[in-house]
């Protein structure tokens, strides 16, 4: 290890030991909203750097979606017969499952940052607390965007095609990402409520696996046992998958649709879901963050 400069050297540069000469640095003039945006960007950038620097995240973001697309297409595709072909049916399901799981990262990362003391460092700085959460959920949005790109590329190679319009395609992608973004806020809230990051990982696995599998994501639901079929029809993941399928033009004419209101109005259901998640968990998370020191 190299040695630290002597106090003489340090003093001569005017930074250490020279209070009289170099006064406290004052913030640049700025508005509250300007500072909030700046803080949000700095926090987002920090999380983006982490995507590049931590190999686990990159594998989770890029390789796992490729693996899922290929596995499901070739393994289930051989056994499941749906109108229009299984690949076309599957892709919206894979998209939905991947972005919902991608959102859980906000929970475990929030819990990890709390544990590591990074959050405490932020809380001694004059930054906006809400910006920490904005940065966190923005990070997930980027991760999910990358995953979507990779999955779409892989899907295209194995024969998936968007059969609607550019508008439909963009709307479908936006709906998937927006739902996941809203879900990130719920996960961020949970991340601040648990004692260790592992709890988030384990619980989200236990909850989200059934939630994404007891849905129309991977199999047609009309032949499921009645309780599962009803659950699946009311499952928000089903609405998300159905919306994406419709917007991508991946629903051939004559495909049966469930009787539940959510199954009949999938896009509206998802939009309501997004609104509810954001309206509840944005203020709740911000309040939770502000109250971190009060327990």
């Amino acid at each position: 290890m190299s040695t630290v400069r002597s106090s003489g050297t340090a003093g001569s540069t005017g930074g250490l030991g020279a209070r009289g000469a170099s006064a406290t640095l004052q913030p640049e003039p700025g508005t509250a909203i300007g500072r909030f945006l700046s803080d949000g960007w700095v926090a987002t950038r920090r999380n983006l750097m982490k995507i590049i620097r931590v190999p686990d995240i990159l594998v989770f973001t890029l390789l796992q979606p490729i693996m899922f697309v290929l596995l499901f297409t070739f393994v289930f595709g051989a056994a499941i017969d749906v109108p229009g072909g299984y690949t076309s049916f599957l892709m919206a399901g894979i998209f939905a499952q991947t972005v919902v799981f991608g959102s859980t990262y906000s929970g475990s990362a929030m819990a990890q940052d709390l544990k590591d003391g990074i959050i405490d460092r932020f809380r001694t700085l004059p930054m906006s607390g809400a910006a920490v959460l904005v940065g966190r959920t923005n990070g997930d949005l980027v991760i999910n965007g990358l995953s979507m790109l990779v999955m779409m590329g892989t899907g295209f190679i194995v024969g998936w095609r968007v059969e609607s319009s550019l508008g439909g395609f963009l709307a479908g992608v936006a709906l998937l990402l927006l739902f996941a973004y809203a879900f990130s806020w719920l996960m961020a809230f949970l991340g601040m409520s648990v004692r260790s990051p592992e709890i988030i990982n384990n619980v989200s696995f236990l909850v989200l696996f059934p939630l994404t599998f007891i849905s129309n994501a991977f199999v047609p639901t009309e032949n499921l046992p009645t309780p599962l079929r009803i659950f699946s029809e009311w499952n928000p993941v089903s609405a998300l998958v159905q919306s994406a399928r419709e917007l991508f033009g991946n629903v051939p004419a004559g495909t049966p649709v469930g009787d539940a209101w959510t199954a009949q109005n999938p896009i509206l259901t998802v939009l309501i879901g997004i609104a509810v998640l954001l309206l509840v968990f944005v203020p709740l998370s911000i309040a939770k963050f502000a109250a971190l020191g009060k327990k």
Partner: protein
Amino acid sequence: MPFIEASDLVKTYTPKGAPVVRALDGLSLQVPQGTVTALLGPNGAGKTTTVKVLTTLISPDSGSAVIDGVDVLADPERVRRMIGASGQYAAVDENLTGFENLEMVGRLYHLGAKRAKQRARELIELFDLVEAQNRVVKGFSGGMRRRIDLAGALVINPPVLFLDEPTTGLDPRSRLALWDVIESLVSGGTTVLLTTQYLEEADRLADSISVIDEGRVIAEGTADELKASVGGQRVALTLVEADETEVVRGILQRYGAGEAVPSNEGKTWVVPVEDGPTALSRIVGEVTAAGIALHDAGMRRPTLDDVFLQLTGHAAEDPGEGGKGAA
């Protein structure tokens, strides 16, 4: 008026299925402007909790805290613009480089992109981290990590610095190097509150020491005053065999100024004395005359353990333990 003033701070925790812990039990503290005060105490004494209250991280159950006339509890936002905090609880980001960490902190103090970069460069140079500046902190040595952490606290050159156990867990060489840095820092008139488990560290860096135990300040003064309060010098003997302990005790009591305390299964004995050299030569003379073989005999100054033993009736914990979550 003191620059930092804490009065009657009380903070309790209720761990699940355990009795209430009084982390702070009426702690009061005053730090005059431009001085260095050390909070000295074992793990769990309330050092970190005190600093967390003063750096706006936690709210006490009751009591008040004021920094340069600003009420910490009522106006934390203003306090955050004038403090720098460094230590075990306020970590740096392991996935960012040293430079990125400092630049991020500058941005979050709202210095603007240009000044944040410039200040990060200055601090990198000041802390001799130029070669390591573009490596992620994860790969830093313990000493380098503490330096980047300390640099982070200095980004705005704040009038008030909080250093929470700045050298705990470092090897002796890195500790000495870091002491140099802190010393040059405080000679410039920054008001500093630092916590430590090492009397030596407080001795070297602080103008004034507040010894705390069980959430309260139990003694205050300079290092010399504290050492004097536990009886100045001591004579320590190490015996080859622990078989004539009563004879040894008798000799030590005769020349000592207090109780002779055995340890190490009766092989090691320590007694406070008034005139060290005279007492040492007489004790060694009598012990040898009694035919008791000695491994070692010498004078030593009081240690943290002596201060604690005297002030609290119990020994300080092993200072080698980092204790990340310790209050």
